């Protein structure tokens, strides 16, 4: 039975697309056939982060409007087996997304894929609402700072009221908190909220903490999801998230400020 997972946040720029890309890649690396779908009509980024921007022929809107088949629009990922990308349109606007059309495409995807990761745009308007409407599970991406937490709270309220599961009285969407851009040092000096602070307000099970890292920018520049950066803490953290999502236990890592050893302090690191 296919699972639709929305990666959402409310706030912009917190790491939804970065996380969608790595999360979907992680699922595919574990052998599950995964499609990642860009719901940000008009401001698409997923194709850039996945490194397939030069291979976009047809997009999500084309499929909804019957101008192309899903087979024609889906782009096979170059880095990972089992992974496909459905890019958003760059030229149309969000009105082209209809509840019925989105439902149809997702149903078709569910025939073939184990997981469908929906990369939501920022905000609480049409694109974001469509991305979360058919979700079975949600990763609520939150930076450990007040405005992101406030917006995540808002989007959680919307998930609980405006998803199809909420409207039909089905089992509610499974909510997971994904804290990104976490800097233990800044938490220590009181600049950033701690994991506990965020959880106290949002009260949603924590699926992972992704540390702040320069690797993320490098990854998006090279069009290679950061989960591929083997050995780096960001990549490890995303792998942990995937494992936990699949039901495995993993201790939370990267929460303590780095105690730099002598050589690290000498040479920087």
């Amino acid at each position, binding site marked *: 039975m296919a699972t639709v997972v929305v990666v959402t946040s409310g706030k912009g720029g917190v790491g939804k697309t970065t996380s969608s890309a790595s999360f979907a890649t992680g699922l595919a690396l574990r052998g599950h056939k995964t499609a990642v779908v860009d719901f940000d009509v008009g401001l698409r980024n997923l194709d850039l982060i996945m490194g397939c921007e030069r291979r976009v022929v047809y997009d999500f809107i084309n499929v909804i409007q019957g101008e192309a088949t899903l087979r024609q629009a889906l782009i096979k990922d170059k880095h990972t087996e089992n992974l496909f990308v459905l890019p958003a349109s760059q030229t149309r606007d969000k009105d082209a997304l209809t509840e019925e059309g989105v439902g149809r495409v997702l149903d078709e995807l569910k025939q073939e894929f184990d997981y469908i990761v929906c990369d939501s745009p920022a905000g609480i308007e049409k694109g974001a609402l469509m991305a979360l409407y058919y979700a079975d599970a949600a990763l609520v991406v939150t930076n450990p700072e007040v405005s992101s937490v*406030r917006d995540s*709270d*808002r989007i*959680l*309220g*919307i998930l*609980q*009221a405006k998803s199809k599961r909420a409207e039909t009285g089905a089992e509610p969407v499974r909510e997971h908190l994904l804290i990104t851009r976490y800097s233990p040092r800044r938490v220590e000096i009181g600049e950033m909220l701690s994991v506990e602070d965020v959880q106290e*307000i949002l*009260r949603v099970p924590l699926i992972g903490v992704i540390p702040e890292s320069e690797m993320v920018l490098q990854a998006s520049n090279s069009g290679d999801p950061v989960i591929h950066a083997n050995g780096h803490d960001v990549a490890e953290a995303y792998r942990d998230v995937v494992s936990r999502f699949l039901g495995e236990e993993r201790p939370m890592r990267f929460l303590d400020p780095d105690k730099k050893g002598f050589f690290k302090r000498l040479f920087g690191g």
Partner: protein
Amino acid sequence: MNPRDQLPLPLPAGRGAAHSGRDANRGERAFEIKGSTFSLLSLQLKSDSLEHVAHDLDQQIARTPGIFDVEPVVIDCKEAADAFARQFDALVAMLRSRGLRPVGVCNAEASWRDAALEAGLGVLEGAAPAPKRLTAAEKAEAPAIVDKAIPSSAAREGPPADVQVVRKTVRTGQRVFAATGDLTLLAAVNAGAEVLATGSIHVYAPLRGRALAGVKGDSQARIFTLCMEAELVSIAGTYRVIDRELAADVRGKAVQIYLDGEKLVIEPLRV
């Protein structure tokens, strides 16, 4: 003297203390007549223009949507012009369309009395205003202060649910409204959320958003919370925006909030 003799109800002759309709054939009770007391809103007419009444009612409803949800009301005709009674049916129809259910009139003379009887409504005697309760006209004033000063910041996602006990966190942008009685919350009210009640509000968790108690004018309503971090509190229209200057003995602590005359008092809860 049997108190039941005071009821203005026709009692079947010859039936003693058991004022229950006994079905002679089946020997079972079909009904029971008891003295009961009901608290009712009364709408005291002060204008003799139907349009004026409708207009003001609509304004009230716009400020507090859902405030009248099939609310029984008695039309108080004390200050109503006799001539207005001729529009009785139109008045009743208008009130019904706004969520009020006229059940009768009080302080009604001649033409109002006749009009009510004609329309099949009751004529209620001796309306004593409940102590410390406001008439509908005065109640209509109090929420006006609330809403002029505090436009609701919460998004309207459907009609406000009429709840009494809330077990889940009230999230930013959500709004919970107890149209009758008290509101009890067993989870936090997050910043940017809004909880309102006709009665008091009890939050057994942090209160970080806005709490408005006594929204229909009950100045005796109170707000209780285990952790005072509210953005704004209001009782019967008197409100206070809380910025960071709360005293250390109440900030983040268990408090009760009540109205002392015109002043909103925030007091530590000491048990």
